[in-house]
């Protein structure tokens, strides 16, 4: 017997027992839709499973019973007789299951008597007629097809199957249909319900001794509570051990030590074992899906492929149990309703075989499961219509609903837009069950659908109950656990200038940010979060500690903590009901030393951070950028001159300041300010900006070496990271052009214009005036970057020429022997920077040895390797101005020597 069948037997026996009990309850309380829905679902599950396991007798019986119960749901009065009949059917189901368990095959026999009675009752319109129906008049059996269903391609094969089963030699103990209980009286049902499970057990027991018994599964089912209790006990044991170890450390008596070590070892193993019992890869729940899909594909006459990824994603056993059925339902649903018939697909220009993609992964402390099909998508118009018809909500309200809201109607009980009821689905059970099951464990289901393209269901299950690896951090006096899943990296930060090369947190109008590989990361402090705010309080020290770089969905941010300890596998314990409303925590746990710590919920933090962000688009665009990688620029946007927006590449900016306007001094008609012990000239970003005389004045400080310039702006607005597309090339020297940033037309200012306004000699490289300025060739396809870097390089004392492509650069290099070194972008259309350097090295002579500094958007190991091969002096991130200058300074000496 294969695993599927075995599993089916165990499950079905459980389901039938539940149905028995529920039916009796239902009879006493016929208006309880909850019970009916439950019964209906269980029978539906059995029917469905039988269908794909190829058990026609069981399927036919379950289908007939379900049809009758469907009538109850539509308001058909529930009579004792009808319940009796269904109970009789359940008994028959159990008997067949018993045989199945004993022999591995469905016993031969006919259920026409029961099916006939069930169908008769289901088709009777008058409730009165139902009263005499229970006696399943065996004489009156016509010879109807055992299954009554809509014509479907799969139908034929089922008949064949049944014939095959009929012809096959049946087991000796041929099952004789029990007569249904005669009287429709309550005690009778109750008795029956109690007796119900019995047929299974004795038969199975008998079979064990008989010939060719099927070995029982070598596993036992353990109540989750038992495991939970074990877990608690083990945690306690760990604590006790730790205490013992502590005592042993204080006493020098080595007599303890050996047994204690042993205890310690055993405890650790025990803990691991108990934890393991709780975890299972999600693949376990998927095992039967390929077969489900294959069988469905045959039955429905569609080509369907199931692609699964992330099967190794581990889930808590309990969670897995809950989502198993919904997953099967959803995959069946996708196969039946989602994927179109083959000819339709071909007509629509799609591959003939439909694809269902099932994937699972951990994301930000949740487990996400996606079921995506490339089928026809949800017909939202039809759903709207149906929702109005079924009166799920007032028509006017449905009108106003968004597509996403409308799509969710498919989770409504009793909803089905399928034109025909098939044995696979279409009865409107399933999707509501899916939702209920997922919600019981605190999960959510989302639907994304596009007509003609397909539908994707996304199930997110929180990690409650799961064991996760967490980083233990400290903020203030408290320790917290941060799930590692959300942690991208850790960065140590120190006060600026405290250490060479250390990362430092900078502030923009008080808000801390961190430059991380030339990207700005908003920083929140864990202590601030614990006050419920993402902003930093006045006077809070954010200058040193560790930044936990976290990514949730598409949002990235840094959480500043005081200390980072270690990582630990923790068991997530749910928060108390009194504390569950705090979004910051995913639960709590007990650490190895016995202390209770709170588990920070990265999603909750992201939400809090997101609330304080100006718009959701910030996160979006930032994350897009992660994928797109290079060619984006981080720009500081400010208001300057007549309310217009201006921007400057952030990499050029040294610091943002707000100064007291009263401190501005005038010397020789030029505004100056004492800044860090020196005089710094102030230059308005636009002629129309008037220096303030009182209050505070915003400045953007640019500096080079010991010189600094303050650009006077009206207001600092934002930092954006966007692909730069300079649209209008301005004919003003103070502007490079205009670009659309965040949907606003923004002028990009040309710093090269302002620097000479502050110091007449800035651009002339005064410090190196004595020496012949080394000549540098800047190669970059983007005019913007050329314009941006040229003044910087000039200011650093180089004489700069530019080239916009590798070819142009080569030409310049060959024709101009005065060039001492090359700064080249690596990512250029056509010939890349590597090609250029390669060609230089090949050209030999002067070019072969010429120092090259490469600029790149991303510094990967491959690029580094290639750069080393080509003897590139340094790889510098594209926006790392100081990095570039440092790299140039390093090679400057020999380069100069050679030039001299």
């Amino acid at each position, binding site marked *: 017997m294969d695993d599927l069948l075995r599993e089916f037997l165990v499950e079905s026996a459980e389901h039938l027992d539940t149905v028995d009990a529920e039916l009796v309850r239902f009879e006493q309380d016929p208006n309880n839709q909850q019970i009916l829905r439950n019964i209906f679902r269980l029978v539906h599950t059995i029917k469905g499973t039988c269908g794909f396991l190829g058990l026609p007798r069981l399927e036919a019986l379950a289908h007939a019973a379900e049809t009758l119960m469907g009538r109850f749901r539509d308001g058909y009065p529930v009579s004792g007789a009808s319940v009796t009949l269904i109970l009789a059917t359940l008994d028959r189901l159990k008997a067949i299951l018993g045989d199945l368990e004993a022999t591995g095959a469905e016993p031969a026999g006919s259920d026409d008597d029961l099916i006939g009675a069930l169908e008769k009752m289901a088709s009777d319109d008058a409730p009165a007629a139902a009263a005499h129906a229970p006696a399943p008049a065996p004489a009156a059996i016509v010879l109807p097809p055992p299954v009554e269903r809509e014509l479907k391609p799969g139908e034929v094969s089922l008949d064949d199957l049944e014939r095959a089963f009929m012809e096959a030699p049946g087991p000796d103990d041929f099952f004789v249909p029990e007569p249904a209980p005669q009287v429709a009286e309550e005690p009778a049902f109750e008795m029956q319900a109690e007796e119900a499970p019995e047929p299974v057990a004795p038969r199975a027991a008998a079979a064990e001794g008989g010939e060719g018994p099927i070995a029982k599964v070598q596993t036992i089912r353990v109540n989750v509570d038992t495991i939970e209790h074990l877990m*608690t*006990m083990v*945690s*306690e044991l760990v*604590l006790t051990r730790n205490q013992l170890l502590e005592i042993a450390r204080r006493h020098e008596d080595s007599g303890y030590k050996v047994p204690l070590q042993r205890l310690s070892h055993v405890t650790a193993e025990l803990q691991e074992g108990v934890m393991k019992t709780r975890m299972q890869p999600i693949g376990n729940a998927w095992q039967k899906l390929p077969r489900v899909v294959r069988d469905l594909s045959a039955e429905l006459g569609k080509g369907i492929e199931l692609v699964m990824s992330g099967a190794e994603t581990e889930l808590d056993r309990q969670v897995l149990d809950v989502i198993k059925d919904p997953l099967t339902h959803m995959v069946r649903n996708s196969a039946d309703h989602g994927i179109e018939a083959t000819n339709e697909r071909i007509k629509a220009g799609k591959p003939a075989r439909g694809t269902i993609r099932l994937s699972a992964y951990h994301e930000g402390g949740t487990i996400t499961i996606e079921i995506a099909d490339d089928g026809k998508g949800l017909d939202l118009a039809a759903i709207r219509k149906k929702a109005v018809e079924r009166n799920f909500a007032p028509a006017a309200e449905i009108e106003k609903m968004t597509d996403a809201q409308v799509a969710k109607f498919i989770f409504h009980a009793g909803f089905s837009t399928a034109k025909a009821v098939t044995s696979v689905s279409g009865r409107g059970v399933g999707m509501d069950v899916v939702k209920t099951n997922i919600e019981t464990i605190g999960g959510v289901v989302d639907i994304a659908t596009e007509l003609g393209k397909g539908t994707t269901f996304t199930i997110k299950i929180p990690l409650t109950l799961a064991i996760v690896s967490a980083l233990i951090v400290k903020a203030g006096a*408290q320790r917290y656990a941060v799930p590692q899943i959300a942690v991208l990296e850790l960065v140590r930060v120190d006060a600026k200038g405290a250490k060479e090369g250390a990362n430092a947190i900078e502030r923009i109008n008080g808000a801390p940010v961190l430059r991380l590989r030339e990207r700005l990361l908003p920083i929140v402090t864990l202590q601030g979060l*614990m*006050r*419920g705010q993402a902003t930093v309080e006045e006077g809070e020290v954010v200058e040193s500690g560790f930044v936990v770089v976290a990514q949730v969905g598409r949002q990235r941010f840094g959480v500043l903590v005081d200390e980072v300890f270690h990582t630990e596998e923790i068991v997530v*314990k749910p928060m*108390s*009901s*009194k*504390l569950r*409303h*705090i979004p*910051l*925590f995913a639960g*709590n*746990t*007990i650490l190895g030393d*016995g*202390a*209770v*710590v*709170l588990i920070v919920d990265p999603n909750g933090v992201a939400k809090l951070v997101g609330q304080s962000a100006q718009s959701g688009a910030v996160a979006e665009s930032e994350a897009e950028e992660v994928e797109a990688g290079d060619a984006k620029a981080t720009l500081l946007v400010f208001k300057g001159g007549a309310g217009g927006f201006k921007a400057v590449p952030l990499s050029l900016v040294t610091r943002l300041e707000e100064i007291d306007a009263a401190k501005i001094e005038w010397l020789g008609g030029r505004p100056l300010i004492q800044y860090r012990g020196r005089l710094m000239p102030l230059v308005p970003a636009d002629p129309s900006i008037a220096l303030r005389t009182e209050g505070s004045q915003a400045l953007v400080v640019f500096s080079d070496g010991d010189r600094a310039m303050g650009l006077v702006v009206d207001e600092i607005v934002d930092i954006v990271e966007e692909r730069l597309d300079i649209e209008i090339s301005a004919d003003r020297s103070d502007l490079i052009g205009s670009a659309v940033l965040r949907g606003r037309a923004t002028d990009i200012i040309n710093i090269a214009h302002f620097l000479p306004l502050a110091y007449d000699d800035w651009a002339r490289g005064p410090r190196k005036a004595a020496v012949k300025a080394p000549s540098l060739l800047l190669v970059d396809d983007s005019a913007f970057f050329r314009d941006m870097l040229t003044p910087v390089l000039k200011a650093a004392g180089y004489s700069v020429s530019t080239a916009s492509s590798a070819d142009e650069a080569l030409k310049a290099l060959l024709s101009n022997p005065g060039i001492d070194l090359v700064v080249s972008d690596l990512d250029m259309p056509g010939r890349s920077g590597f090609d250029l350097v390669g060609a230089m090295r090949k050209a030999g002579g002067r070019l072969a040895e010429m120092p090259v500094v490469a600029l790149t958007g991303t510094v990967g190991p491959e690029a580094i390797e290639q750069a080393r091969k080509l003897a590139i002096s340094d790889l510098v991130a594209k926006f790392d101005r100081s990095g570039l200058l440092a790299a140039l300074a390093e090679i400057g000496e020999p380069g100069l020597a050679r030039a001299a």
Partner: protein
Amino acid sequence: MQAANANAAPADTTDYVTVFVGETMFGLTIDRVHDVFVPAGITPVPLAPREIVGLLNLRGRVVTALCLRRRLSLPDRASGAAQMAIGLEQAGETFALIVDGVGEVLKLGAETHEPVPINLDPRWRDLSLGVHRLDGRLLVILDVDALLAFGDAQRDAKVA
């Protein structure tokens, strides 16, 4: 004492665990009390309701510690002052009620029971089931369910 009298008629008596907060003696029906222990290593929970002082580890279980003083709107005890905890259970969750001290268990009959005086502070009135007249002092019987019924109401109020 009353306790002795009560022994004669066990059917009408109830056992109370007595606890102290300041000068007041409170009683908790013994069947609701699962544990009496010295609380240690309380982890505060940021953003939690004021009544909750934090979480603690009680033999491998995470227990929510609730301060009776704060629940009764009394000032906090001086830091470093002795405190005890009563383990209570409700709906499968364990709570630790932090009190100043724990006294003996009293067996009390209905004859000493009095309804809650109407002039009692409403915050106290809502939390008590009655008062027992003892020799020389009064015992306020606490309603455990009412004691533990704070978080939800607050949350509901927030939602509304």
